[in-house]
């Protein structure tokens, strides 16, 4: 299927924004101004983007500790995200959540989640809402290869099939869960096959190939939207950085990292493809690069200057009423 110029530019914009966001945090993190843990998504941009392009604001996604990419792809405000990551009051979660808890219900972003396997059960709940209310809403769960071994994830898959919920389970296989290789932690051969054995269609795609992800996601989301129940997609794409910022990555060889940048960069692959097939112009992409760079510059700048919450804010927002 031909995606059309606008969609391709939109896709590139989202992917580039994610990349730039993450690369910049990687740099800024060394200043000590960013509190806590950050887990960067760079390298996996085509997955979040290929999937979220299929979704509307009223559709929901659930995310992980590595959630910046999903948030940006789903349309969260980049400046408000950056403020949140810096712990500022104007952040998307008022500074209370930080990198691991970015959420924006207006944009259908149910939340990053610091519990591995935490989001799949929640996502089937969002899908249940759509089903009970009879809307054509869809809910998508993003999980890592590591999270695919968590009991909560399995339960969510079975329940989604039983209740025929409009869900798509995305498994991003980036080769590692923390410092342990996927091949070690995963007993079977294929996450997709295992998901399939739960009673839903499942495919494996190259997660560095935006077009492959996009096609698989389109099919799965359409299936969900038209009442045909859940499906699963395993998308393989390695992360460029460590598990968290500061991870020395001794579990990865230097060669692996070099090769990754050369052959596993979804942005390069996208650019090469669209330029070769003359789908969009290099100029248009360059223009996006500049826009995105400015956007992120400004976001970092604002985030650094913004105010922290004050201790008055400590006690608010625990309950709606108490």
């Amino acid at each position, binding site marked *: 299927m031909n995606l059309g110029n606008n969609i391709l530019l939109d896709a590139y914009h989202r992917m580039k924004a994610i990349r730039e966001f993450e690369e910049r945090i990687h740099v800024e993190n060394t200043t000590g101004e960013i509190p806590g843990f950050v887990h960067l998504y760079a390298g996996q941009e085509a997955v979040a983007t290929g999937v979220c392009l299929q979704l509307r604001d009223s559709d*929901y996604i*659930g995310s992980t500790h590595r959630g910046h990419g999903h948030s940006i792809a789903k349309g969260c405000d980049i400046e408000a995200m950056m403020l949140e990551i810096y712990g500022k009051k104007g*952040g*998307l*979660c*008022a*500074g*209370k*959540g930080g990198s691991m*808890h970015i*959420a*924006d*219900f207006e944009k259908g972003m*149910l*939340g990053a*989640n610091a*519990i591995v396997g*935490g989001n*799949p*059960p*929640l*996502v*089937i*709940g*969002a*899908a*249940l*809402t759509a*089903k*009970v*209310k009879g809307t054509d809403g869809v*809910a998508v769960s993003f999980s890592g290869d590591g999270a695919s071994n968590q*009991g*909560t994830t399995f*339960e*969510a898959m*079975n*329940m989604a099939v*039983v*209740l025929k919920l409009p869900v798509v389970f995305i498994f991003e296989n980036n080769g590692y869960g923390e410092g342990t290789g996927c091949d070690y932690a995963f007993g079977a051969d294929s996450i997709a096959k295992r998901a399939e054995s739960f009673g839903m269609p499942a495919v494996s795609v190259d997660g560095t190939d935006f077009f492959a992800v996009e096609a698989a996601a389109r099919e799965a989301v359409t299936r969900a939207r038209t009442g045909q129940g859940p499906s699963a997609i395993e998308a393989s794409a390695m992360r460029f950085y460590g598990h968290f910022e500061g991870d020395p990555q001794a579990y990865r060889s230097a060669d692996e990292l070099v090769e990754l940048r050369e052959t596993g960069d979804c942005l390069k692959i996208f650019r090469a493809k669209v330029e070769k097939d003359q789908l969009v112009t290099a100029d248009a992409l360059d223009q996006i690069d500049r826009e995105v760079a400015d956007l992120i510059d400004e976001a970092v700048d604002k985030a650094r200057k913004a105010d922290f919450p004050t201790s008055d804010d400590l006690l*608010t*927002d*625990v*309950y*709606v*009423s*108490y």
Partner: protein
Amino acid sequence: MSKKTIREALNEALHQEMARDGQVIILGEDVAGGHGGTGVIDAYGGPLGVTKGLIGEFGANRVIDTPISESAIMGAAAGAAATGLRPVAELMFVDFMGVCFDQIFNQAAKFRYMFGGKTKTPMVVRTTIGAGMRTAAQHSQCLYHMFTSVPGLKCVMPSNAYDAKGLLIEAIRDDDPVIFFENKLLYDLACDVPDESYAIPFGEANVVREGGDVTIVAFSRMVHIAEEAAKTLAAEGISVEVIDPRTTSPLDEETILDSVEKTGFLVVVDESAARCGMAADIAGLVVEQAFDALRGPIIQITPPHTPVPFSPPLEDAFIPTAGAVCDAIRKLLK
């Protein structure tokens, strides 16, 4: 108005709320039952019969039988609540919290705070508690002290049918996650319950019995143990005030503190835990806030620090008794 058991009162509350608000759904294991079998649907109506008849009235789209997957049930409820429904999820026995606690205490309870106040999670988890049914260590616990300690959760434990109905309706209408603890041994206890819908606000204790010599704070079934003790002591000329907080979170601190200001003595009767339980919580509150009024030690009457035993004489010795309460109070006032 007519006499209804707690089971009937809860069922009526669910009926009325589901009829009133199409966003209210029920989900859990065998909340209807019979799906995929050769017999009838609604074969269970909840393992303890509380949700009977609901599927007939509201259909399988709103009364949802699930696989035995508590994490998925609680997660689905939380996710649905955050996106526009008002789920009432059933955790058959609170003892099963261990396979699904994350979705309750790290997810549902913390959403609002972590997300900076930008969401609400109006879900209810109905669950059963309590020893006395000879169901041994994994089906007899109370555990509400753990939930009470979690910021973001509300905890409710009715001791009679009137409260059961009013508090469940309140729970369903409440915009925060509420854990609703039903004592298995109280389901058949009846009292007058209005037919019409009504809500009892959280954080308002019920002074079950007024008295001037000593205050008892008791929860759930222990309220009845306390009342029994109070009656016995009344015959001995000791006037006991019995307070049923009804909700532990929020807690009506004022009613408890006022009572202790009046009586000077406090006994807490609670089945949850000998350590870090509700009894310690109330004692800690009072010795911090009403120290000057205290005229003697605060006595905690709880089960011992043991799992719940199976054999009847052991289980009977495990559960706090009116006799033990009376003894403690007699000693206290001597």
